């Protein structure tokens, strides 16, 4: 939603700068302690995998902090769409802060998991998409 258009406007040019697309990928195991690049769906990013304690539940979790990859022809990997240990149906939580990595967290009830699996790619796609719209 935008502010009101000038009454005499007859035509606008709308620009969408960028979008985020969920793309399928292979499953990729990342070991606890991993701190480096990884490649998912053919695109690279950086991940740090650590054990942690969930602030709310006090339970064991494994956190995957992801820094987006470099642009490759108007595409870059933001972060995996899914993180799990054994059961891909279980959800994960996510936290993010401006300027910081996206942290994906999944429960590790036994506290003994040695790796997590990441799957699917949230890919940032750069435009722009331009639409010429008559508004008269």
């Amino acid at each position: 939603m935008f502010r009101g258009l000038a009454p005499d406007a007859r035509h606008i040019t709308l620009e969408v700068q960028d979008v985020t697309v969920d793309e399928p990928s292979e499953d990729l195991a990342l070991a606890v302690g991993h701190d480096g690049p990884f490649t998912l769906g053919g695109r690279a990013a950086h991940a740090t995998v650590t054990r942690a304690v969930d602030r709310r539940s006090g339970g064991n979790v494994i956190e995957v902090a992801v820094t987006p990859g470099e642009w490759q022809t108007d595409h870059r990997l933001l972060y995996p769409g899914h993180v799990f240990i054994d059961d891909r149906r279980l959800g994960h939580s996510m936290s993010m802060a401006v300027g910081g990595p996206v942290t994906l967290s999944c429960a590790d009830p036994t506290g003994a998991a040695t790796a997590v699996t990441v799957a699917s790619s949230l890919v940032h796609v750069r435009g722009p998409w331009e639409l010429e719209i008559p508004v008269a």
Partner: protein
Amino acid sequence: MGSASCALPLDGDAVFVPGVGFRPAEVAIARVPVTREHAGRTITVERAAAGPDGTEVVLSDTGLCEWDNTQMAPWANDPVRLRDGSGHVFGQRGWRGGTGRRGSKDDPRIQTIQRELTLEPLPAGTRTADLLVGDAVLPLEFESSAVAGVRAVALDVTTSRHGVAVRAVRIARSAEDTAIELALSAPDDERRVVRAIGASPFGGPHGHQPPVTFHDDAGTTYQERQVFRDPG
């Protein structure tokens, strides 16, 4: 076809209702928010739109509950129904946005359940109804969307890039606001799903500029000031 915003199949007149989105003109909109305290919880109806195909409801439900990563708060599945003035009860018909939750920064025991659901349609012309959330009763008053909204005009303008199609579907103009409905899709690869305009489905943190702007024929630039994500 992957899609971030399935354009609503609106036949006939449509309106844009601030806080709700584009809807058929015959849809009635509840005056919101409506909040009630119940059994230690705070329940708020954030949106309700009654149409011939059902009544969309968005509500938040906040209370104390030990956080458990593997399950929602116990009240997350309380049945939600509508009761009209004749006492007839209308049940839940389906899920639109599903159920989400968020924790409080101040107290980890406080959690808010956000529910988006669709109930069976109310009789045409219904102006008052009670929303029943478990045992809680939240009275709703509906008004015509023609009163609450701005008439929309259909568009059909599409452009594609990198396999992602962006379509302008509708526009609604008032002196104060311009609302444009966009539908995004990946028409050539059904495995790809367009999650969001911008750099993240959740709004950050990688955004660098307003993801949508437009300029008019006088060269004036307009930046978006509010975004509605409507799963349709």
